[in-house]
């Protein structure tokens, strides 16, 4: 009996500590930015996010994501298939390379692109042929692709592994071609994992700061994405604008989290 009471006390203490930690670290700060953004009224906040520069920054962010996310989705599926079904030397190394963007500093990514496409870099000559990569959208797209590459691969690999190759082999003996096998057998099994990975990729693509910041040149109204715009407004003491644009990004993040939640049970059900 006394032991039960003690068990309950420690359970409640742990619950209180865990929720308190989350509240202080996550919930209160994010909530407070919402408060700050709307403290002068919703009209003020709306005005702040509909200025010419803010709208352009949002459009550019979405444009870059619209290129990087589909590219990484297709590449992610192909890489996952190669990692799970392929038999070739260096698979372990490939595995580490695919994970590298998760562990590598985004600033290092930006610098690497800078050195590759900059003056004196191996591909620095492209700028002379009218193909401007640095301080322009292509460089920002490349930076975004780099940092958001692993997400689809990481979600699809475990599902492919659990699925096994039997069904695909059965389809092959029945005379199905590789494309038909993928469309009819493999893809239906991995589609929820792909969707989950796409949501994570999109979140990362929209929010990337360090890598994009290093290659963009941060030209207002030209190469400034929304995260860069937030930083610029904050540095320029336009904190109200920075808070309002942060709320736009936070709302996107909340949609992402809800989307992940909605996809998760289905993914479990598919297994």
């Amino acid at each position: 009996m006394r032991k039960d009471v003690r068990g309950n006390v420690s359970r409640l203490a742990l619950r209180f500590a865990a929720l308190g930690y989350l509240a202080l670290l996550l919930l209160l700060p994010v909530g407070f930015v919402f408060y700050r953004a709307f403290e002068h009224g919703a009209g003020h906040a709306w005005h702040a996010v509909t200025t010419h520069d803010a709208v352009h920054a949002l459009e550019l962010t979405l444009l870059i994501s619209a290129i990087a996310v589909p590219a990484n989705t297709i590449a992610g599926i192909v890489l996952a298939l190669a990692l799970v079904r392929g038999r070739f030397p260096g698979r372990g190394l490939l595995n580490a390379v695919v994970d590298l963007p998760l562990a590598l500093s985004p600033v290092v990514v930006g610098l690497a692109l800078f050195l590759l496409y900059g003056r004196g870099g191996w591909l620095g000559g492209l700028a002379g042929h009218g193909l401007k990569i640095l301080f322009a959208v292509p460089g920002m797209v490349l930076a975004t692709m780099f940092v958001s590459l692993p997400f689809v691969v990481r979600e699809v690999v475990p599902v492919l592994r659990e699925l096994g190759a039997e069904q695909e082999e059965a389809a092959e003996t029945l005379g199905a071609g590789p494309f038909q096998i993928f469309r009819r057998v493999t893809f239906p099994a991995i589609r929820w994992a792909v969707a989950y990975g796409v949501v994570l990729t999109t979140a990362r693509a929209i929010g990337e700061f360090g890598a994009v910041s290093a290659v963009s040149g941060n030209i207002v109204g030209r190469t400034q994405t929304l995260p860069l715009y937030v930083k610029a407004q904050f540095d320029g003491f336009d904190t109200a604008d920075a808070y309002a644009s942060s709320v736009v990004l936070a709302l996107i993040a909340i949609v992402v989290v809800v989307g992940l939640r909605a996809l998760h049970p289905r993914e479990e059900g598919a297994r």
Partner: protein
Amino acid sequence: MGYLSVVVLLPLAALVWSSRSGGLAALWQEATRPEALAALKLTLGVAAVCALVNAVAGTGIAWVLVRDRFAGKSVVDSLIDLPFALPTIVAGLTLLALYGPSGPFGVDVGFTRLGLLLALLFVTLPFVVRAVQPVLLELDTEMEEAAASLGAGAFAIFRRIVFPNLLPAILSGVALAFARAVGEFGAVVLISGNIPFKTEVSSVYIFGQLQSGNGTGAAAVSVLLLAISLGVLLAIGAFRHWRTRHDRA
């Protein structure tokens, strides 16, 4: 494969190549400048503290999310993913708004190492929680009940039965959190104030060198960070490999 080469490998090869272009001596000189060394020491130190805090807090949160029952648990569970979804610059801004110089509580962690740690804890929160949660879900409670019926206390049960089962998951979560903390830029750039020798971490140092046109200095420190990231990933991979072989035997 070609895609991977163009997007990931080619830029990294260019980085390593140009870091060596001035010769190894120049590279060493750039990497061991006092400001660069101070930044690297701070980066590794604060990332280590961050990883340790995550090991404890992450395991605790995972435990509460799996074993405890309370209203709104699924909302809290979703909340864990927020740091993955929220742009890092916004994460830094939110922390600075609440705990910075103009915050409502009168605490000011702006431009301090504590603020740096707070920003890193924010962005690395999900790693340990999401690594431990599935393992804890699959862990059979029968062993714990047996131990309890034999008179083991809650702490002894955790230390002798639960903890050894969770340890691999905790370690891989901690390793990823450490790697992320070493490289983080967006969340710390506002809150740290970037004071050399005090709150300037390596990623911010690299960015500063790049902005001021010192590509060699930036590349030198970058190659070190690249080596750390690769090292952490290979360690996780080797550990997993060793464990699967170990389990089969």
